[in-house]
């Protein structure tokens, strides 16, 4: 299964690298927020607070739409062709998800580079730890995105996901910390798992490692990873997918 995953990862990475512009475009929205909204935010907040928010936005938008790739593979019969090979169906999912994780890494580096240019400063340990958290989050989101794409079908996928992403981004507190929100909105945002991941990321970027916030964020990310891969694997295994 490891070999199949590797072979499928290499294959989808090759396809992704042929569309380098696609990687850039996936990160355009958070980059625009960084450049055109960041300077305003920086008048009362810090770049170390804003950039983690935009990374979570990036994860939700870029990885949340990852399932689009499999929509075409299903339509052209490619998925079914692969499902008749001896390759494990979990490998069919994992190979793709690993490729998405690479995209997430590249896009996050782009965002961080621009953040640094604007004056963001993050301790190296916090940066590395945050990176790991973000990549795991991205992979889980990609896996869930495949599950959604194969379940709701190609007509609904793009409109549903691009709409669903907006409240998830807003409720995570990506643009303004939820501590500024009125009570009811604060409560609502606590229902979103992404708030906890984001707050942990902000702590890590601030150089606070051994906090309850970090612990909670890591735990939530781990749960998202397990749930994402389990749901993704289930859907890839399903008969009619």
């Amino acid at each position, binding site marked *: 299964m490891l070999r*199949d995953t590797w*072979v*499928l990862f290499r*294959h989808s990475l*090759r*396809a992704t690298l042929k569309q380098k512009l696609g990687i850039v475009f996936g990160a355009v929205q958070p980059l625009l927020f960084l450049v055109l909204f960041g300077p305003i935010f920086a008048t009362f907040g810090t770049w170390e607070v804003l950039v983690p928010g935009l990374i979570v936005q990036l994860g939700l938008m870029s990885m949340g739409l990852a399932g689009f790739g499999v929509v*075409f*593979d299903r339509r*052209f*019969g*490619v998925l*079914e*062709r*692969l*499902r*008749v*090979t*001896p*390759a494990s169906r979990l490998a069919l999912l994992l190979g793709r998800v690993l490729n998405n994780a690479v995209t997430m890494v590249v896009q996050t580096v782009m965002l961080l580079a621009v953040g640094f240019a604007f004056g963001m400063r993050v301790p190296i340990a916090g940066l590395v730890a945050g990176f790991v958290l973000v990549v795991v989050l991205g992979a889980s989101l990609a896996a869930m995105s495949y599950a959604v794409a194969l379940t709701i079908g190609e007509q609904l996928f793009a409109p549903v996901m691009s709409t669903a992403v907006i409240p998830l981004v807003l409720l995570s507190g990506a643009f303004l910390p939820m501590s500024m929100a009125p009570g009811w909105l604060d409560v609502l945002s606590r229902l979103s798992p992404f708030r906890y991941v984001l707050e942990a990321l902000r702590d890590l970027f601030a150089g606070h490692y051994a906090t309850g916030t970090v612990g909670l964020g890591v735990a939530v990310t781990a749960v998202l990873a397990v749930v994402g891969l389990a749901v993704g694997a289930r859907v890839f295994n399903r*008969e*009619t997918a």
Partner: protein
Amino acid sequence: MLRTTGLTKTFEGGVEAVKGVDISVEAGEIVGFLGPNGAGKTTTMRMLTTLLRPTSGTATVAGHDLLGDPREVRRRIGYVSQGGGVNVMAPLADELELQGMLYGLTRAAARSRYREVLARLDLAGLEERVGGALSGGQRRRFDIAFALLHDPRLLFLDEPTTGLDPQSRANLWEHVRSLREEHGVTIFLTTHYLDEADALCDRLLIIDGGRIAAEGTPAELKAGRTLDEAFLDITGRSLREEAGV
């Protein structure tokens, strides 16, 4: 090569697509699987190729138990679905290489293997294109090429020539015949074209309403009638109308 006993499939919601099918195919045969639309052809095909789990019944496919050992079955069969599996946007060479490697070949072996298969199907050189740049006949032969990379002993073809022009059909028949004559591949195919069944198959199975309604060589089934008449007598429905011919 292929043997099923009492194979059934009931979908969620209670639709009984296949109501107990016994099929037996010997090594080296070309067997045609005929039936009106909705008779259960594709459902049966998808069960035999490990894509659908039968509701009940047993099957041995290419020497392995379908339910107990689907992975060993997958190693030994080739499957060309109705719609095919050519990615219209990706270079075919990349896709062929991936397919070969998923059957355990090294990259180098996968490459030399697909070149060999493409040459056999008169497709050499076309692998640098993307799927969308192929003609209908070429695309269908690529579908078959994908299914042959691991040298399967048993090949399933679901409506291999639907939508092809007469030349491409005749050409594909030649390739299917030579697979059997020169490489000993056993072939199980569905078709809506009775001339195809007549010209290509050693034996025919006719399925109607989820059950095998008749079985025999084309000559036996015809018994003095045209195959169309025989088919209509057996199934009581007009195949030609449904196929839109």
